[in-house]
């Protein structure tokens, strides 16, 4: 209450000042602009079916996570909310989201959702949101530049050294961003998922969760480990020692757009990103895509290799994805859930999944002939066999932000030791001494 009063009044004033108070409508929804091609046809179908108007609030992708958290905690969020899956447990533990199990059980298409994927959107035994898609992560590479640098294709690096070696060749051939790996706080969750976690999972032997941020058995955060040190050292080599790319894309006015522009300009060599890039490199809403042949001519991808340390995994992967859930304060929960199911109705959802080459979260889509016939999805889905999820427990958002800060410190010229010490101390500040462990 204490804080909500303040946040509510502050937000109310901000809204009045900006004259941005949404018009009164039966159901409202907030979503990121890149998800428009899924959400907007769903809204249109809902309006047609019920005759009610939906108040749609489309938001820019940059700063989206912060906006959602702030609006939900201030009580000013819309009835239906799109959010990154890592935030679901956090928001649910604060009581901002409505459990959906009961309503979902009565919906005929709910049975098709893959159980493991519903888990990322669950907290304390309840499902709080429905996933839009899942993803895998890999290294994308720009073929014309690889040709210029004389690197054999298909490119199949076996260790980090192979990746750094290729990046050095690209740099020598004049490629400006030889290895673009997300770093720093402005890239937000991209730094943690596409960069740090992908490296960390292959940095050390996997026993005892030594190569994760959290020991999932004891629930303790890992403040220092050989894996973390090697991961930060990789950042140090890329951005400081070998200067394989300037850091500016990570801090651009719109980092996502800047990275894609660099690729379009032929200035990118290797890009650490995920399966969505097959469509996103050109347009995240799947329009104006070049043909399969043209895309294959320009870009290729390879799994993230492990560090090459004895016992480390050969390739790594981690999966996330986005979700849509219902605000605990929704004025009309039934109407809100109806909007969710209309968006996820198979006619709408399947078309979007296929057009955007997203990895399906429902068996009625993933087992459909069209999905199975897509050569890109078939190959990317194979990576999912050996994937893992984020540590979707409350506190992850903070830890993720601390990891981003650690990469930022490295760019600042801090040594790996200093960055690790700052990270460890901050974990202790946040969670207490007994919740933080160190691996030798």
């Amino acid at each position, binding site marked *: 209450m*204490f804080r909500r009063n*303040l946040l509510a009044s502050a937000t109310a004033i901000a809204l009045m000042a900006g004259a941005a108070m949404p018009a009164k409508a039966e159901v409202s929804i907030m979503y990121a602009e890149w998800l428009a091609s899924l959400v907007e046809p769903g809204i249109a179908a809902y309006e047609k079916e019920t005759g009610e108007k939906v108040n749609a609030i489309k938001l820019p992708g940059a700063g989206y996570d912060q906006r959602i958290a702030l609006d939900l905690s201030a009580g000013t969020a819309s009835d239906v909310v799109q959010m990154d899956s890592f935030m679901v447990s*956090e928001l649910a533990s604060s*009581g901002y989201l409505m459990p959906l199990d009961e309503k979902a059980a009565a919906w005929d298409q709910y049975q098709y959702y893959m159980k493991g994927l519903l888990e990322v959107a669950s907290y304390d035994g309840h499902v709080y949101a429905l996933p839009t898609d899942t993803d895998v992560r890999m290294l994308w590479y720009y073929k014309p530049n690889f040709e210029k640098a004389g690197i054999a294709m298909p490119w199949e690096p076996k260790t980090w050294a192979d990746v750094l070696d290729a990046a050095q060749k690209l740099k020598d051939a004049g490629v400006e961003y030889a290895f673009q790996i997300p770093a720093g*706080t402005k890239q937000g969750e991209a730094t943690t998922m596409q960069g740090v976690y992908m490296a960390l999972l292959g940095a050390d032997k996997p026993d005892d969760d030594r190569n994760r941020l959290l020991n999932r058995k004891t629930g303790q955060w890992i403040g220092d480990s050989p894996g973390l040190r090697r991961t930060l050292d990789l950042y140090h080599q890329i951005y400081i020692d070998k200067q394989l790319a300037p*850091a500016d894309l990570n801090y651009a006015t719109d980092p996502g757009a800047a990275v894609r522009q660099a690729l379009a*300009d032929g200035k990118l060599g290797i890009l650490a990103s995920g399966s969505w890039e097959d469509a996103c490199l050109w347009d995240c809403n799947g329009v104006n895509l070049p043909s399969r042949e043209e895309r294959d001519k320009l870009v290729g991808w390879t799994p993230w290799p492990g560090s090459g340390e004895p016992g480390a995994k050969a390739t790594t992967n981690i999966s996330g994805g986005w979700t849509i859930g219902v605000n605990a304060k929704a004025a009309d929960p039934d109407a809100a859930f109806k909007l969710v199911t209309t968006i996820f109705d198979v006619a709408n959802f399947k078309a979007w999944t296929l057009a955007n080459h997203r990895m399906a979260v429902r068996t009625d889509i993933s087992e459909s002939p069209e999905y199975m016939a897509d050569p890109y999805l078939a190959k990317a889905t194979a990576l999912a066999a050996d994937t893992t999820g984020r540590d979707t427990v*409350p506190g992850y958002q903070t830890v993720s932000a*601390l990891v981003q800060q650690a990469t930022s410190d490295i760019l*600042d010229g801090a040594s790996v030791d200093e960055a690790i010490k700052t990270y460890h101390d901050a974990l202790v500040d946040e969670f207490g001494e007994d919740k933080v462990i160190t691996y030798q």
Partner: protein
Amino acid sequence: MKNQANPWLTNNLVLLGVGMLPALLLIGLLLYFTAWAFAFSFTDLALVGRKSVEWSWVGFENFQRLFTRRGFLESLWTTVIFVFFSAIVGQSVLGFLLAALLRGRNSTLKTVIEVCIMLGWLLPDIVAAFLWSATTAQTGLINALIVVPLGFEPVNFINDYALPVVIIANIWKGTAWSYLLFSAALDSISREVVEAAKVDGATPFQRVWLVMLPIIRPHIATNMLFITIWTFTYFPLIFAMTGGGPGTQTTTLAVFLYNQSFSRGNLGFGSAISVAMLVIVGLLSLVYLRMLREPK
């Protein structure tokens, strides 16, 4: 005291009270928010997660963290550099020079320059950020027009010189305010005083330094007060241009506060930072207010 007041006012106390109501409400609101931020700074309150519901009082722990953990002092130093060069040196001096040089002129040149200065002031911060990012990028205007034609390798200004670039962008953005204020101040100096100094044999420099500057001293102090406070807490242009990076090179206190409060969701610690900023700006204001007083 009541006896000294205007009799009309003393006879209409109710009306007076009603008239003051909006002001009182505003003051109350300001105090209310400040008090909350102050109270938060002694808690471990979070934006989301368990501590958003089960928060507790932590005493001075947040304030202790300001000085024992990396981040705050570094950001404070960045902020001091940013304020000193972009506001005090840049905007004030440039604004004054422009106002002094264009004073009394009524040429097309003056109109053109005034429109240019005002454009910077009128452009939304985010638009200005995009403009400056594009201008200072490796393939941007400066490289294309100056660096490359002169035969040098293109420089990635926004990456290699992030803080100077942000400072220059902010000078460009904010000089209009100082220019307008100093123009008005210089216009208020009576012509006779300056003419008299001229007759007495004062050089142009002496006329500015010994005659004009002392007369507009209160204006200078007012200007400093405003732009120091604005620049100290300024956020949008810096965040949009660099996000506080590369690394933390352009992380001013406002960006640091944003990262702590909203990326890490740590409202308690964020409030402690804002209280510290309040204290620093408050002390600076006292210095300027002292400058505003007439010397004895």
